[in-house]
């Protein structure tokens, strides 16, 4: 068995069945073997049925045996080289000013490769959506150039066929949800039995099977986001741009959707690049290869350029202790302590993050939460903070 299969078996061994099922589906999809994909779909359905019917009970041996058989088959199929790390899109000094003059996006440079995730963060109304819409070809540029490296002399239609943009407010779907998915697959050239297979796959992969026969008005906003992602993925875009995709998702779904997207972006079936904007900084930073921070139209931070350039370390924590006891611990003037009403942030040029946390633990200062935000864009959301 190959590395991925071994990893999945370890998930099963440790009871992470949901993750194992999703990863198995990905592995089978990468194999591009229809019969195997169908088998994996059936296996996933059985798992979900069992999950719904007998929540908390152990899975039968048959389930585990089938998993092993599927993984063995998937491992035996030689999957070709993945199309990773190819340049997808590069923006050179792109800027945009609206005709009413109220807002302008200042020149931005960025590049996304296949399999890479770029996170765009920033406060509301600072230009994230404008940047994403420019990259998606929805807004004309005032200056700069966007290169779509996989397309030769593309027109605007080809660019939009190549890129998928999921806006924050997803337009309403009409008709049965499953019909929409079949339609999206068909317009991307996935016809006949393959169309059925891919729609069923996507429904299983995003765990939407039990909602497929409903309509848009019958599902929650979180499921609408999931269905939109499923629809977009069926159209096989090479670059996926998502504007605040996590806004309507619960905490579990946020992580699941993000990891699912990453797995699929880096999979062999349709390797793609992802650009996403979000206010869920930690979730985005966890999965993104690169994060940029936009403030008042300026790109003021790029995580790829930040490594080693930070002049201070920062730790965010929550404690019932009072401010003075923390300052006393580090000594007056040695650290900067900020309090936003909920969390404290300690910024220090002298102490590393580990040292700051270690000192607080040693001093038995009670902490209910802490996080090293030295390289996090979270720093820029705090007033008066700087690199």
């Amino acid at each position, binding site marked *: 068995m190959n590395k991925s299969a071994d990893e999945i078996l370890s998930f099963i061994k440790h009871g992470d069945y949901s993750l194992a099922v999703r990863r198995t589906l990905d592995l089978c999809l990468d194999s591009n073997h229809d019969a195997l994909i169908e088998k994996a779909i059936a296996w996933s359905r059985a798992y979900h049925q069992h999950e719904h019917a007998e929540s908390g009970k152990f899975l039968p041996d048959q389930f585990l045996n089938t998993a092993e058989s599927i993984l063995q088959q998937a491992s035996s199929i030689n999957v070709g080289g993945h199309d990773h790390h190819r340049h997808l899109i590069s923006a050179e000094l792109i800027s945009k000013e609206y005709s009413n003059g109220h807002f302008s996006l200042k020149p931005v440079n960025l590049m996304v490769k296949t399999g890479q995730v770029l996170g765009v963060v920033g406060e509301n109304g600072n230009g994230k959506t404008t940047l994403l819409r420019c990259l998606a070809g929805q807004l004309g540029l005032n200056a700069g150039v966007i290169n779509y490296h996989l397309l030769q002399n593309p027109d*605007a*239609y080809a660019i939009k*066929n190549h890129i998928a943009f999921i806006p924050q407010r997803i337009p309403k779907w*009409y008709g049965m949800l499953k019909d929409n998915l079949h*339609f*999206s697959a*068909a*317009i*991307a050239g996935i016809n*006949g039995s393959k169309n059925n297979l891919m729609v069923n796959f996507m429904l299983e992969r995003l765990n939407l099977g039990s909602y497929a026969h409903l309509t848009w008005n019958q599902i929650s906003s979180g499921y609408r986001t999931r269905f939109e992602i499923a629809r977009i993925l069926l159209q096989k875009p090479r670059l996926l741009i998502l504007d605040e995709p996590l806004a309507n998702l619960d905490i579990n779904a946020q992580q699941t959707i993000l990891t699912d997207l990453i797995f699929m972006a880096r999979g062999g079936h349709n390797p793609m690049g992802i650009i996403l904007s979000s206010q869920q900084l930690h979730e985005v930073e966890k999965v993104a290869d690169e994060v940029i921070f936009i403030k008042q139209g300026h790109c003021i931070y790029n995580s790829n350029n930040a490594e080693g350039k930070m002049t201070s370390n920062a730790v965010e924590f929550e404690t019932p202790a009072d401010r003075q006891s923390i300052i006393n611990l580090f000594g007056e003037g040695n650290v900067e302590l900020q309090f936003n009403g909920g969390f404290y942030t300690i910024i220090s040029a002298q102490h590393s993050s580990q040292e700051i946390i270690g000192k607080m633990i040693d001093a038995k200062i009670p902490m209910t939460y802490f996080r090293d935000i030295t390289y996090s864009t979270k720093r820029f959301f705090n007033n008066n903070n700087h690199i």
Partner: protein
Amino acid sequence: MSKRPLVPAFLKKWDDKLLRNKPGTWSSRTHLVLYFALVFALLLFAFCFFVFFDAKQYSHINSWNVFVCLIAFVGFVFWLIYLLRFNVFKRYGNWYAMDGLKDFILYFISIGAMVAVCFIPMAVETLRANQQFGNGEIVKDINELNVNACKLEYHLVPLNWKADTCRIVDNVNSSTVVESDEDVVVDSVVVETIQNAAPRFRIMDTAELHSKLITADSLLKINDSMYVFYECPDYRFVSSYHADEYSSEKLLSSADIYNRFLKIPQKPDRPALLKRMLELKTKYAVKSPYYEGEEYYDKIENASYDTKIKKKYDLYRISNGIDNVVQKKYAWKMAWPVYLRVFYYTALLLTMLVFIFRHSTVKTFFLSILTGILLTIISALMVVIFDGDEEIYILSFLILYYFVFAIMALSIFKTNIRKASQGIALNLFLYMTPFVPLIFTALNKAMQYRNTYAINDYGHTDPDTNDLYFLIAEMVGSVMLLVLIQPVFKRLYRKWYSSPEE
């Protein structure tokens, strides 16, 4: 698979197959429209078949047409709102060579099916009339009614023919006396009655002689320039326009009736003739006559023989019934070019609207309609202000607008931003294209007419040739649209719709 309860299983399967394999075809929902149109057409046909059981009664087809058109319109709106929700183009789906033309044809078929349904009541009415009354049967019955009335009322009908003595001249102008306020066409009958001369005669030009020779019941040629024309009294109490136009049987003229039945009278079998008249009355008389004149002539003691006979044998009601039957029977034969044009242009105009709607933004679509209305108002105002030749001005404006729209629309190829003005121009460019040859032809005709009017020469307009020119222009316009849809319009829409906004 689709949940629609009214759709049969085979169509659901087909729908499913189209969804997975031909999303463009599926999204037009032509298969569903055709099915529902067919089901509705069959139901409507059956219903009309039973309702239109008596062809001799007055037609209520206009009410039927309005009713069915309203249902078809509801179907059209339903199709627009509930069925045309999926759009390959607006989802930037895969692009195939003849998509634009295919979409247009599918929309035309769908709308055509809905429009065609509106003609079913008329078609059934004609069918029923033809089922109930044969072409020759009506002619025979009319002749029988007239002949029987003459035989039964032999003592009442006049037998003397009117004589009209005419002198023929070969120059119209030299003998024409036309009062300036007379509503007389200049080159028709020329009248110069010599009031005081004896014997009385009138002057006739050779053109009138020609037609008179064909229509006169009888004539006597005194010499090369003097004719006596005889006109038989009217024995045609019942008649109907077009009744014998499509039949081998012909209506008997008054002269025929006189010569065959009245010249040498024979004693009629009155009971048999009366019985037959009653049968024909039952066969043709409407419930109430269209002409309410009975009260009027009841009070006139010296009513004409014609009025007396018509009243005695209820010939008004019979005549109305026969008119109704003839009208229904030959409605399609007489007016099929009109029906065809109503069908074609309704379907074409709606198809173009749907095509534009499916390739344009909602905002641009409605702005295009608004622009069209505004330009119409502005053009009308300009015509009024300049007080010119209305037709030529309006047609010239239309041509000007068309070229402006075409230039603006074609400029889309050169820009990289989606501008609403270009979208509006593109929509109107497409909408006007099938009518451009017609506009040019009409302008040409209007200018020709203006020129001939200037030199007072009216004799060279051949209506058949004109019709042919307009027919060719109509066909060229439609072909132009079909030819340009894919290489020009669809490409322009592709470029315009997908371009980034400003």
